[in-house]
């Protein structure tokens, strides 16, 4: 299939070279073919591991037969916007952005990573290891670090906890800020710049392994129920051939020794099947949290949520 495609391209190129006055028809096809696959990364992985990501991108390129490029952006919002605008072909996003409403839908689940045997993870509320805080209640009037306003583990879960207790989250903490990276949330708490923070359990465990001097300065005071692991999505509109190739390569990584190496680096067991229902509890949490907003019109929101659920 792939070979045929390259052969086709060669012929096209030959035709272009031979007939310089009739190129217009095939111009876009060439650009599309030579432009690398754009794969967006967010706070769910350590974006700072440049060499590792370059090697992984190279591995994916080799396996798929097309160049793959990782694209790093600060926030989920930027990645989602880029997906919507068509600048990205794939992205590793979070359960929370996934469950948010999109009209029309522009992404499609392709895989959910398997972490410690399951496609699940937690949100951790962490504090400095020397601090006296034992629960979220103790953090009243303190400084709290979120990772990203569209992060499930790094924002939605603590918001939900406060909402559930009927606490006004706007005034509960003295100060809050976003680090746009789970790793930096751990850093902020370790440095005592923030008294508490909410992080992805996967990243926290990852740091505990690879940057223990940072993670060991923090202590987990709240462990969320399990959530669906941040999933990988493709943009609706990317040619099915490429999507299928990507899906296949990712899912086969655990069987391939070279792929296994990258999975070890990521501390993942593999990339598994995507099940939309995995993120239902995140969706519920988002709904409940939104409804507690002082200025929210509960009825309208509920209907929206219901509409979304029906989809």
């Amino acid at each position: 299939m792939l070979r045929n495609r390259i052969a086709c391209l060669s012929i096209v190129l030959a035709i272009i070279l031979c007939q310089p006055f009739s190129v217009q028809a095939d111009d876009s096809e060439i650009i599309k073919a030579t432009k690398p696959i754009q794969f967006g990364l967010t706070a769910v992985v350590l974006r700072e591991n440049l060499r590792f990501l370059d090697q992984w991108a190279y591995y994916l390129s080799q396996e798929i037969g097309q160049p793959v490029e990782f694209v790093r952006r600060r926030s989920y919002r930027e990645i989602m916007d880029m997906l919507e605008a068509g600048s990205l072909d794939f992205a590793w996003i979070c359960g929370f952005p996934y469950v948010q409403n999109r009209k029309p839908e522009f992404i499609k689940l392709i895989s959910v990573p398997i972490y410690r045997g399951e496609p699940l993870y937690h949100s951790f509320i962490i504090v400095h290891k020397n601090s006296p805080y034992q629960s979220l209640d103790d953090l009243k009037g303190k400084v709290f670090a979120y990772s990203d306003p569209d992060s499930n583990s790094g924002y939605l879960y603590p918001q939900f906890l406060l909402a559930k207790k009927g606490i006004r989250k706007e005034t509960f903490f003295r100060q809050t800020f976003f680090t746009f990276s789970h790793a930096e949330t751990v850093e902020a708490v370790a440095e005592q710049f923030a008294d508490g923070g909410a992080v992805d359990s996967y990243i926290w465990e990852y740091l505990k392994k690879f940057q223990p001097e940072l993670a060991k300065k923090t202590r987990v005071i709240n462990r969320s129920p399990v959530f669906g692991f941040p999933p990988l999505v493709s943009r609706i509109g990317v040619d099915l051939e490429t999507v299928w190739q990507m899906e296949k390569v990712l899912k086969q990584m655990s069987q391939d020794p070279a792929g296994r190496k990258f999975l070890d680096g990521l501390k993942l067991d593999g990339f598994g099947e995507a099940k939309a229902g995995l993120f239902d509890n995140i969706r519920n949490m988002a709904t409940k949290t939104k409804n507690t907003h002082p200025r929210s019109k509960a009825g309208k929101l509920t209907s929206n949520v219901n509409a979304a659920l029906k989809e």
Partner: protein
Amino acid sequence: MTWFNLSSRGLSFKLALTITAVVAGVAFTIGVVIVTVDWQQFDKELENKSLLLAHSVSVTAAEDILRNDHWSLFKSLKLMAQKGPGELRETTILTAMIIDPNGLVLAHLKPDKNPLGLPLAHDNKLEDQLLTAVRKMRKPGVLSGGFGHRGFVEGVSPIYSDEKLLGFVRVRLSYKELYNKALRSAMVILGLTMALVVLGSMLGAAMSRRITQPLTALAKGMEAAGRGDLLNISPVPVSNDDELGIVAMAFNKMAKELVEKKLLEEQIAVSEKLVALGHISAGVAHEVNNPLAGMMNCIDTLKKHPDDPELIARYLPLLDKGMTRIKNIVESLLIELRTEEANDMGGATSLDDLKGIVESEIGDGNIEIVWENHLGDDVVINRKRVQQIVLNLLKNSIQALQGKGSIAFRTFQDGDCVVLEVADNGPGIPQEHRKQVFDPFFTTKNNGTGLGLWIVYRLVESMRGAIEVESDPGNGTQFMVTLPSQQVRT
């Protein structure tokens, strides 16, 4: 104690010490100036560095403050505080912070002590003063806190957005490195000063040795010259052509000339003695010859007329007179010879014995004597010699007065000397005779021998004393003899 007594130290020591002190002083002054200039330059650099760092944070801070992005503010502080390349690596950032216009913490390098959104943790007055000063600042500037090891300089940069004050960036740099740097240069300079002091003292010692060696030789030579030991002056080594060399050469020349002069003087003295001896011999011959001729005539006449009683009666007194005169001359010469050998020591009151002799000498004359002897018997004198001096002077005065007038004798001790004064109110010595007063056989008197004052002069000279004569024609004459005490006895 004596160590500090500089005046008693040799020139070589003083010179070496002075050179050392000068070298040390100059080295120290230069050192202090260098350290001060260094410090000021380092200080300026540190101030600029703190300002630059504060400014670098403040340029990005405005946007982060407006977005409430405290994490980015903190990260920018952290990045700024990371050890930079080169010079920056040597600077310790004590602390850095971003505060809002009310002094609340927006980000702080020590977040555990200075939590976000709270007032700064301040535990002392200095911090309060600094915060007040910072909050008044509207332009980037530098504040300073303390000095020395624990001191610091703080760069402050206000954060503006559209001319609205959003906060302040404060970057505090330690003086420690600067202080250590200054301390290091001070140590180096101290070491250099010490080295220069050692060199200086060595140089001083060498120089002073070079200067004082010929000086010491000169001093020895001069001492020898002072003692009159002219033949024992060894020539001072002339090392080079400088002032000291010139002095040494001049001294050597002088010493040589002194030796020559001394030899010449000795020759002159010998010839003078011979002349004097000739003079005396001629005088004696003449003085003895004069009466002898008359006496020979008398004897011849008496031989021719041995039985003429008239002649005998006439010539015998003449012979007697002539013989007496010759006897006087011989006696005077003998007296001198005797006294030169005499060594009859006694108390000074023995001079009073002369008073009787003098009074009998005056006889019927109308001469008054004023006698003042202020010496006690504790002053021991060579009786014979001193008596002879005084007696001769008194006799001279009696003869000068010609039976009428007054004589004063006074003797007293003046320091190391014994002074003898004999004065009369006689006719005085005419100007033309002044120089001859002490010459042998010089006399203005009919029956004088001309030896009295000459003997005085010789005696005084033999005792290393001095004799002065003051005479005012018509008003009298005064002789003053000064004898060194130790010589009075010998």
